[in-house]
């Protein structure tokens, strides 16, 4: 409590602004009750130094403009074009109103890299060849399809024709033109000279096929003059004896009869004859199946020596071995010879 003995200490504390509001009021009441002490109280208060007013705002010149984080981010986002429309409009308003923001934005704009053109050297080496599509005219497609179909039909027709019509072989004599079977349908028994039948000369086997291709004789097959001739009686005996041999006569019947009677021209070791077909459906051709040949690999048909190896080679070359029926028939001198193609 302030009194006349300690009032100087209270006045100093008051001057140094160390008293709270209640203590300051108490000191001021004490001075009012004792007016003789007012002069000392005011004298102490005047000792307090006060800053001159002209220095009050000097610090502002040293201050730097501070940008809020919101400003920086907006400025950077605006520079990168990442602000949406409302935020961009807001940022534009700030730029117009605030010079500091404008200055910051301008300084950021200078960090943006200017457009710089630079050409990649040897760019052509990176390119790849383009495959141009091949445009086939539509008419050419149709023509191609038609050609393929025609080819298939022709091939199939040829196959069927080949299977139905066995190849024929014409036997000719030297100095005489080859005569196919069809060209002499009416050959009679008297047309065959006995010398020919008894002593065959070198004959030429010429093949003519259903494909109407006339091929040159690839080989001259010499007749074997020393072949053992089986007389017709022996053959007839064998034919009659087995009763399995059915000689199918071709029209005209005269030639068949002649061949049957001159069966001595045929030397066959084993004979199998198709007997399954009814007689009416049988062909008029003589059907002979060659299962074996002689030891020399030769077979004689119509007095003609045929080497079986040559025959098989010819059959193989003409793809006779691809038959599903496993047998093939060829016709030689009005003889139809069935060959087991699995032997080829």
């Amino acid at each position: 409590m302030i009194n006349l003995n300690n009032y100087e200490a209270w006045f100093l504390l008051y001057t140094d602004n160390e008293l709270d509001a209640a203590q300051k009021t108490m000191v001021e009441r004490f001075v009012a009750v004792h007016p003789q002490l007012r002069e000392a109280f005011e004298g102490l208060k005047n000792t307090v130094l006060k800053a001159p007013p002209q220095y009050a705002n000097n610090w502002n010149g040293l201050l730097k403009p501070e940008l809020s984080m919101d400003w920086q981010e907006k400025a950077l986002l605006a520079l990168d074009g990442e602000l949406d429309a409302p935020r961009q409009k807001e940022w534009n308003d700030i730029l117009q109103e605030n010079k500091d923001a404008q200055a910051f934005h301008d300084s950021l704009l200078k960090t943006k890299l200017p457009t710089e053109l630079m050409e990649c050297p040897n760019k052509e080496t990176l390119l790849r060849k383009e495959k141009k599509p091949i445009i086939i005219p539509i008419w050419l497609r149709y023509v191609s399809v038609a050609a393929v179909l025609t080819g298939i039909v022709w091939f199939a027709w040829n196959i069927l024709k080949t299977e139905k019509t066995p190849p024929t072989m014409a036997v000719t004599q030297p100095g005489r033109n080859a005569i196919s079977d069809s060209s002499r349908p009416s050959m009679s028994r008297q047309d065959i000279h006995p010398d020919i039948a008894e002593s065959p000369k070198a004959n030429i086997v010429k093949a003519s096929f259903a494909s109407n291709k006339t091929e040159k004789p690839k080989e001259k097959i010499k007749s074997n003059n020393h072949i053992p001739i089986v007389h017709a009686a022996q053959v007839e005996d064998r034919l009659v004896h087995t009763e399995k041999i059915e000689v199918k006569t071709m029209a005209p019947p005269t030639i068949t009869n002649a061949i049957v009677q001159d069966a001595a021209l045929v030397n066959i070791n084993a004979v199998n004859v198709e007997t399954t077909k009814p007689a009416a459906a049988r062909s008029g051709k003589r059907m002979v199946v060659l299962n074996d040949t002689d030891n020399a690999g030769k077979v004689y048909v119509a007095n003609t020596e045929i080497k079986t190896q040559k025959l098989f080679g010819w059959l193989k070359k003409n793809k006779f071995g691809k038959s599903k029926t496993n047998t093939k028939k060829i016709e030689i001198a009005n003889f139809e010879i069935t060959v087991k193609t699995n032997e080829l």
Partner: protein
Amino acid sequence: MTEKDYNDCVRRYADNVFRFIVKNLQHEENARDIIQSSFEKLWVNRAQVEPEKSKSYLFTVAYRLMIDFLRKHSRTQLTEDFAQDSRTVDQPDTQLRKILDEALQRLSDIQRSLVLLKDYEGYSYEEIGTIANLSSSQVKVYLHRARLAMRAYLVGMHYVL
């Protein structure tokens, strides 16, 4: 992607990718090798790349090849080589470009790449993130730091632009 799309990609983006790589590496020959490898990879994987995404794919491949290259090679030698390269295109304001190049080279590799992708190619944060295998937020942070660093460099060097 067909062969035609691939060739279109070469014609349209080869310069951009080359600029991006050569600005990072500061070495033209190495940049050309990376471009060659990038397009080779694009050609091999063309069946899986859609034409509209070919540019992004190309920059992604080139960026990763460049990062691999930078990890293997020294940067100092490359910078010296590029300083002697006369093939760089002169700009009207060469002083500005020089200052900006200096500021750009002071950035980290990733910051520099992001700035180049942003300023030259105009990619968004998301697209840059796809190329650099970063999130959009990371791209934003890297880019903002790079901008402020470049700005500080320009102001600090008392270049009044």
